[in-house]
C-alpha cells in the first residue's frame, strides 16, 4: 500500500508537470492576444503595445514566461490581465459562487439516480422501468439550454417569481430566513438542470449494475433459501452493485472547479464557468492557465482518492 502511494504520487507529479507545460503552450500558441493589446484600436502606437507586452511578460522567450508564470502562480502574485486582481482571489470568489450549485446538483443526482435505477432494475421490463428509460434518454438528448429556457419561461409565467441570478434583486433588507430561502430558491433550477444529465446517466448505470448483480448466483441462493426479498435486494445485492460508484466520489472532485457556461449564462449566475469563458474570449492568460492547472490537479487528486477508496471498500483488491 505504502509503495503504491509513493509510486502513485511520483507518477502523478510527472503528469502534472506535463499538463502544466501543455496547458501553458496551448494558450500561448493559439492565435489572438490579450484584449488589452487591441490591434484594431487606432489610438494604440507600436510602443504602447510593446509596453503592455512587457508588463504581461509576453515579450520574453516562452520558456522564461513559463517559469515566471508558475513562480507567480505558486507565490500568489499572479494577477489577471483584465483588472489586476489577484487570480487566486478571483478563483476563490467564483468557486464559492459555483459551490452551492455543485453541491445541490450532486445531492440531487445521487438522491434521485439510485432509487430510479434500483427501481427500474427490480421492475425490469415493467412500467416503471420503461418510463424511467424513456425519461433518461429524453433528458440526455434534450439540449440543456433548451430545457433551461422552457423551465424559466414556465416558472416565470406560472409562478411569477424571479429565477435569474444568485438572489432576488432588492431583498437586502429582508429578514435572514427570507434571504436564506430566497437563495435556496434560486439554486433549484440551475442545479436541477445541472443534474439532469447526471441523473439520466447515473440511473442507467445503477440499473445496469443492479441487474448484473441480481443475476448472480449468490442472490439466487439467498432468495431460494427464503431470505426476505428486501434484505436480499437492499442489503446483499445493493452493496455489491454500489461498489463501482464509490470510486466515482473521487472523480467528483474536478467538478468543483467546473461549472457550466451555458447554465451560468442563462441564469446570470456569477460562477466559475462564466469567468473561464470570458477569460478565453479576452485571452486573459493568467486566469485560463490557472484554471486549467487547478482542474488538472483536482483530476489527478481525484483519481488518486478513488484508487485508495476502492482498496478500502473492496477487500478483494490488494495493491
Amino acid at each position, binding site marked *: 500500500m505504502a509503495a503504491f502511494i509513493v509510486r502513485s504520487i511520483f507518477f502523478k507529479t510527472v503528469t502534472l508537470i506535463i499538463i502544466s507545460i501543455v496547458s501553458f503552450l496551448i494558450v500561448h500558441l493559439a492565435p489572438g492576444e490579450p484584449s488589452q493589446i487591441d490591434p484594431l484600436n487606432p489610438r494604440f502606437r507600436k510602443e504602447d503595445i510593446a509596453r503592455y507586452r512587457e508588463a504581461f511578460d509576453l515579450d520574453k522567450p516562452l520558456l522564461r514566461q513559463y517559469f515566471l508564470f508558475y513562480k507567480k502562480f505558486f507565490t500568489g502574485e499572479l494577477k489577471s490581465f483584465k483588472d489586476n486582481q489577484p487570480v487566486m482571489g478571483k478563483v476563490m470568489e467564483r468557486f464559492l459562487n459555483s459551490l452551492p450549485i455543485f453541491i445541490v446538483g450532486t445531492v440531487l443526482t445521487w438522491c434521485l439516480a439510485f432509487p430510479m435505477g434500483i427501481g427500474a432494475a427490480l421492475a425490469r421490463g415493467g412500467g416503471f422501468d420503461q418510463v424511467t428509460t424513456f425519461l433518461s434518454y429524453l433528458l440526455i438528448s434534450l439540449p440543456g439550454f433548451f430545457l433551461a429556457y422552457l423551465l424559466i419561461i414556465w416558472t416565470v409565467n406560472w*409562478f411569477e417569481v424571479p429565477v435569474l441570478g444568485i438572489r432576488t434583486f432588492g431583498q437586502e433588507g429582508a429578514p435572514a430566513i427570507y434571504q436564506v430561502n430566497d437563495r435556496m430558491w434560486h439554486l433549484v433550477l440551475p442545479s436541477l438542470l445541472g443534474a439532469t444529465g447526471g441523473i439520466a446517466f447515473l440511473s442507467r448505470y445503477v440499473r445496469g449494475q443492479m441487474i448484473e448483480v441480481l443475476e448472480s448466483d449468490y442472490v439466487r441462493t439467498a432468495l431460494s433459501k427464503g431470505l426476505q426479498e428486501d434484505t436480499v435486494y437492499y442489503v446483499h445485492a445493493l452493496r455489491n452493485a454500489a461498489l463501482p460508484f464509490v470510486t466515482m466520489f473521487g472523480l467528483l472532485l474536478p467538478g468543483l472547479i467546473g461549472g457550466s457556461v451555458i447554465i451560468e449564462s442563462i441564469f446570470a449566475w456569477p460562477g466559475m464557468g462564466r469567468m473561464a469563458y470570458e477569460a478565453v474570449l479576452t485571452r486573459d492568460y493568467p486566469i485560463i492557465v490557472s484554471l486549467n492547472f487547478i482542474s488538472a490537479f483536482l483530476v489527478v487528486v481525484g483519481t488518486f482518492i478513488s484508487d485508495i477508496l476502492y482498496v478500502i471498500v473492496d477487500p478483494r483488491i490488494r495493491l
Partner: protein
Amino acid sequence: MVKRLLLFLPLAVSALLLQSYFWVPTFSVQVKGSEARLRQFINASTGDAQILNPILLTDAASGDIADMVFNGLIDRDEDLNYRGRLATSWEIYEEAFFVPRPGGPSAGALRERIEGARAAGQPEWAWNVTQVEVIPPAEVKASVAVPKRGQQGFDQISFTVAYPERVKITLKEVDQDLFDRLKALLGADAFATDPAPYLTGAPAGLARSQSLAEVQLAEHNPVIVFHLRKGVLFHDGHEFDSGDVRFTYDAIMNPANLSPRVADYEPVKRVETPDRYTVRVVYKRLYSPAFGTWGMGMLPEHLLNAEALAGEARRLKRDPQKFTLRDSGFNRSPIGTGPFRFKEWRSDEVIRLVRFEKYWEGPPQYAEYVSRILPDALTQELAFYSGTVDSYTAGVHQVERLRKDPRFQVFSGLAFGYTYIGYNLRREPFGDVRVRRALTMAVNTRQIQEFLLYGEAEDITGPFVKQSDHYNRSVKPLPHDPQAAERLLHEAGWRKVNGVMRKDGKPLQFTLVTNHGNEVRKAIAVAVQDAWKKIGVEVKVDMVEWAVFIQKYINTLNYDAVILGWRMGLDPDLYQIWHSSQTGSGQLNFVGYQNPEADRLIIKIRQEYNKERQVAYAHQLHRIIYGDQPYTFLYVGKATGLLDRKIAIAEQDKSGKTRYRKITATKTGNYTFHFNKWLKLPGVPQFEG
C-alpha cells in the same frame, strides 16, 4: 431501512428545495408594491465591467458606469458641439517658435522685421498676432522609443536639444499656415533647415534619425486654457480643483500605470496649474483631436497620489514599490464628481450606484442606478417583460416585435460606425477604380438594410459620423444599377464570357473574408456574392475566427476583400485609417488607400482648430474618398432602445411645479441624453400638447 432511506431522502431534499418558493417575493410584489422601485433605474447589461477607472478602462460596460461616476472637463451637447462640464469655459491660442538660419539674420533682426510689418498693418494676418519675442537659448531633454535590435520591445533613448536664440510669436488663434505666411514675409532662407547642429547626446543609427525628427526648428505650440467650475465636490466631499486635472494627466503618462490613453495625451508638452481653478495645457504640435480627450473622467488626487497608494499598499501588506494605480481598490469602488456615487459591485452580478445629492448640476431624479449583469439575450428580454429591469440591449428583431406594444416606448438613432466591404487595392483587379465602382453598384445596400437589419440602418457615403457636421450630405450614394456596373467593367476591359467576366483569359474572381460568429456579416457575404454573380464576378466566401482573421489576413495584408466595420469617435481625424503612411502590415489602412490630395486634407484636418475650416476640409475629403471607392460603404446601423412607457422626463417649471415631458431622442439619435431628469411614474403619463 435502506429501502426507506432511498425513498425518504429524495423526497426530503426535493421538499426542502421547493418550499423555498414560498419565501420568494413575486414579480407583482417586487414591481408594483414598492414605491422605492420607481426611484430605481435598473439596466440589464450583457457583460460585467472590468475596471472602473476612466484612465484605465477599455470596455464599454466599464465606460457606461464610469460616465455616471465621473465627469470630464468637457463633453458634447445635444448637437455634438463641445460644452463645459468641470470646466466652465476655455480659450485656445498658439505660441509658435522658430530657429533662424545660422549665419542669416539674427532672431532680434527677424523680430524687428515682423514687428515692422505688423505696425504697418501689412500682412492680412497681422490682427492675429498678439506678441513677438526673442527667447534666449535653451536646452531641452527628450527621448524617443527605438525598437530593440533583434528583439521585441522598445528602448527609450534620451538626448538633449540645445536651441539657440529663437523667435516666439503668440497668436490669438491657432494658425496652421503661420510658417508659410512668415516665409512669404521674411523669405524662406530666414529659417534654419538642418537639425543636426542642435542635437547632442543621441547615439548613431535609427535612434539618431528618430531624435533628429524630434528637433523642432519651427514649432507650433497650441495652448488650451481651461477655467474650472468652482465648488464642485467629489463624492467624499473633497473639492475638485486644477491639481486633480494635473494629477489625472500625470497618472495617464506614468508608464507604471499602463494607461491605454497614453497616445491621446502624448502630444501634450506640459500641463500647468497657474491657480486652483485654471489649467493651462501646452501642446508640442498642432493636433486638434487632443481637445476632445479632455472629456475624460477626472480622478481625485487626494485618494490616489503616491502617498495614498503607498498607504494602501502597506494596509494590504503589498510591496509599495510595485503597487500602482492599477492595483488600487479604487478601481472597484471609484470616487468621482459625477451624478451617481458608487455603492456596490458584486462581480458578474450587479453594480449599484446611488444619487449624489451634492452633484454640481443638481442631483438626478432617480435615487439609484443599477446595472444587472444578465449575459443571455433571451433572459434579458424575460426580465424586461416582468419589470425587473428597465432597459436592456434589445436586438433589432426584438424592438421590431415590441414597437406597437402600448407598454413600451421605442427609440432608434444612428450609431457612430459603419459596415463596409474593403478591397485590397494592392491586388488586381482592385487597382482599377472602375472595378470598385462596378462592385459597389452591383450591391443592393437597401435590400441589406431592409431585410437583414429590419430597416434599422441607412446608407452612408463616407468615413465620418453621419450625424456630425463633418459628414458631407451632398455626396450621393452610387445607384444600385447592375447594368451600369457591367458597362463599367466592360470599359475597364472585362468581357462577359459564359456569364463570367474575363480579361486576358482570366476570370474576375476573388475571395471575400469576414469573421466568424457575426450573423449579419455572414448574411451580407451571401447577399453580395449573389449580387456579384449576376454581373459575372465569381466570389468565394470565407469565414474565420476573429483572432485568426486579424492575424493571418488583416495584419499580413493577405486578403482580396473583407467585410468589416469601424466604430468611430466624433473627431474627424482619419490619419490612422486613411493616410498613405499607415498602409504597412499591422496598420489600419490595410486596404492600402493612397491619394496625395486625401493625405494633404487628412493632415489639414488634424491640424485645424477652427471648426468651420475643418468642416470644409472634411467635406472635400469625404467626396474624394467616396469617389475613389476603396470601400463599398454598406450602411450605418441604428442603435435601438426600449423603455417602459411610464418613464418620462421630469422638469421643474418656473413656479417650481414638476412637469413631465416625453422622452425624445436628440438630433443625433441619443435618447439617454437627459438621463438625469428621467423618472418612472406609477402609471403611463398623459403629456400636454
